[in-house]
């Protein structure tokens, strides 16, 4: 990827919040972060609360200064800029928030107009722009209402319109759907997708919900205790998570892997060896499995699993209870592994 296609770059970035004494010691929330966010993509950052992801996104527009390292947005190094210099940078970066953070003292139109006023855009031009933005988010007829008259989803739409007012090329979304119900979350996510596809705006979305990542992210970074533990295309992380943290997030949304309690129950009702096979995007995946079972004369009972779609490709896993003659299951597993299947045997099963 040529350097110009990298929109945001983190180089060995750390962030420590200074303490205020013995009872409140300094806290290092981010350590050695290296990230490259490409122009035009939706980049998801997932982590549990307290993992440092909200701090990470605030470093991009300088709401929080870095402790060390370098952050580049476009061709511009933004880490180390003064508050005054950052103001110009921030006008090119939109931001939306978990609690929307709308101005209660202003109307819907007034909220969207605010960044334009700050940027010194004059009245007639401002009104035109506000109308266009409200139309884009589907709230033109609510222009003169106040935020508290709107539902949560509508308030976030106003937040999005406000964030887009100064035609930013980058949008930061900090837990933008965490305060919304599932249905409204869908609406806001599809609006964000529209922002990305139609306006070509790069989106960095912070979330603790893997479902959000599954629905809109092109690429993902998994953050745990201040480190990026895994990053890559959303499909790769879903199809083959490498770290325990990523695996936990993936199974939290796909629910394709049996939990310990489920395994316990399965062992009682199924005497065979319990093996989980990761679904792969290969031709005749299911068929090649069946053929292998037949060839080795192994009885495979499908006991658990789930298949979902991500970026038009299948992800998930299937858990079988395998029974067969002396050594046949071992040979089957060996053959499948050799054929590139990703297997996981749950130990402790009765033989």
């Amino acid at each position, binding site marked *: 990827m040529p350097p110009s296609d990298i929109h945001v770059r983190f180089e060995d970035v750390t962030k420590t919040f200074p303490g205020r004494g013995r009872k409140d010691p300094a806290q290092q929330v981010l350590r050695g972060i290296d990230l490259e966010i490409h122009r035009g993509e939706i980049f998801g950052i997932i982590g549990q609360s307290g993992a440092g992801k909200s701090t990470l996104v605030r470093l991009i527009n300088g*709401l929080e200064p870095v402790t060390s390292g370098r952050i580049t947005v476009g061709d511009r190094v933004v880490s180390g800029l003064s*508050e005054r210099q950052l*103001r110009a940078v*921030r006008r090119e*970066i939109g931001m939306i928030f978990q609690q929307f953070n709308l101005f209660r003292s202003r109307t819907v139109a007034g909220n969207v107009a*605010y*960044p334009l006023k*700050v*940027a010194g855009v004059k009245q007639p031009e401002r009104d035109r722009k506000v109308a266009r933005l409200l139309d884009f988010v589907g709230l033109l007829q609510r222009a003169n209402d106040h935020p508290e008259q709107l539902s949560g989803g509508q308030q976030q739409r106003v937040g999005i319109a406000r964030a887009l007012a100064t035609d930013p090329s980058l949008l930061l979304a900090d837990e933008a759907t965490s305060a919304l119900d599932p249905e409204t979350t869908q609406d806001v996510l599809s609006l964000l997708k529209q922002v990305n596809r139609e306006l070509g705006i790069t989106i960095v979305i912070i979330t603790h919900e893997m479902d959000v990542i599954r629905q809109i992210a092109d690429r993902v970074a998994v953050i745990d205790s201040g480190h990026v533990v895994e990053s890559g295309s959303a499909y790769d992380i879903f199809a083959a998570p490498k770290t325990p943290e990523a695996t936990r997030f993936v199974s939290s949304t796909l629910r394709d892997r049996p939990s310990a309690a489920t395994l316990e129950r399965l062992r009682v009702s199924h005497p065979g060896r319990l093996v989980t096979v990761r679904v792969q995007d290969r031709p005749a995946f299911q068929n090649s499995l069946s053929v292998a079972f037949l060839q080795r004369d192994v009885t495979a009972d499908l006991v658990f699993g789930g298949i979902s779609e991500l970026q038009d490709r299948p992800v998930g896993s299937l858990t079988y209870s395998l029974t067969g003659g002396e050594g046949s299951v071992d040979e089957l597993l060996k053959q499948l592994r050799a054929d590139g299947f990703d297997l996981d045997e749950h130990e402790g099963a009765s033989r």
Partner: protein
Amino acid sequence: MNDFDWEVFRTAIGQTFFIVSISVVVGGLIGLLLGLVLYATRPGNLLSSRPVFILLNVLVNIVRPIPFVIFLVAIQPLMLTAIGTTIGTNAVTFALSLSAAFAVSRIVEQNLLTVNPGVIEAARAAGAGPVSILLTVLVPEALGPLILGYTFIFVAIVDMSAQAGLFGGGGIGDFAITYGSQRYNWPVVYISVAAMIILVQAGQFLGNYLARKALRR
């Protein structure tokens, strides 16, 4: 009611209006400024500055608990340099404006502190500078409670203005004492009391009305 001197009463009302309105406006404006500085320089806030905050905070804490009568006496040297006199309506108005400013500063600071920090973050993210955020985001966001706070201060100023007579400042309070109680002329006392009540009620009513409008309730 033969002894009721309407001429003097009118003058007294005029003096009270003068003292109260100047103190509310001047004290209100200086207090707003002090309150904004207190809020903004608080460590971690928009214009975070520990020395300025501590200095101002201590100053406000020193001035605020001083009873107004004593404050009036205590600042006489300052009064003399600033307006050239220590008695009369102007002197009392000067002292009252100053005293009100310190009270207002706390009310402004406290109400600004209740504004959701997320809103400030949103304004910063939009590229706004600190002074612009203070004036175009924080003050409007806290406007309802601020109006109620100012109403509270207005009533306190009416209260303190009754002590103006002690320093030749005149006003309704002075009228009630010199023409009323000291001459055992009770109608004068009660008419004065009624005038004070009407003034306070009118102020409170206006304040409530404006606050309701600002809060859209």
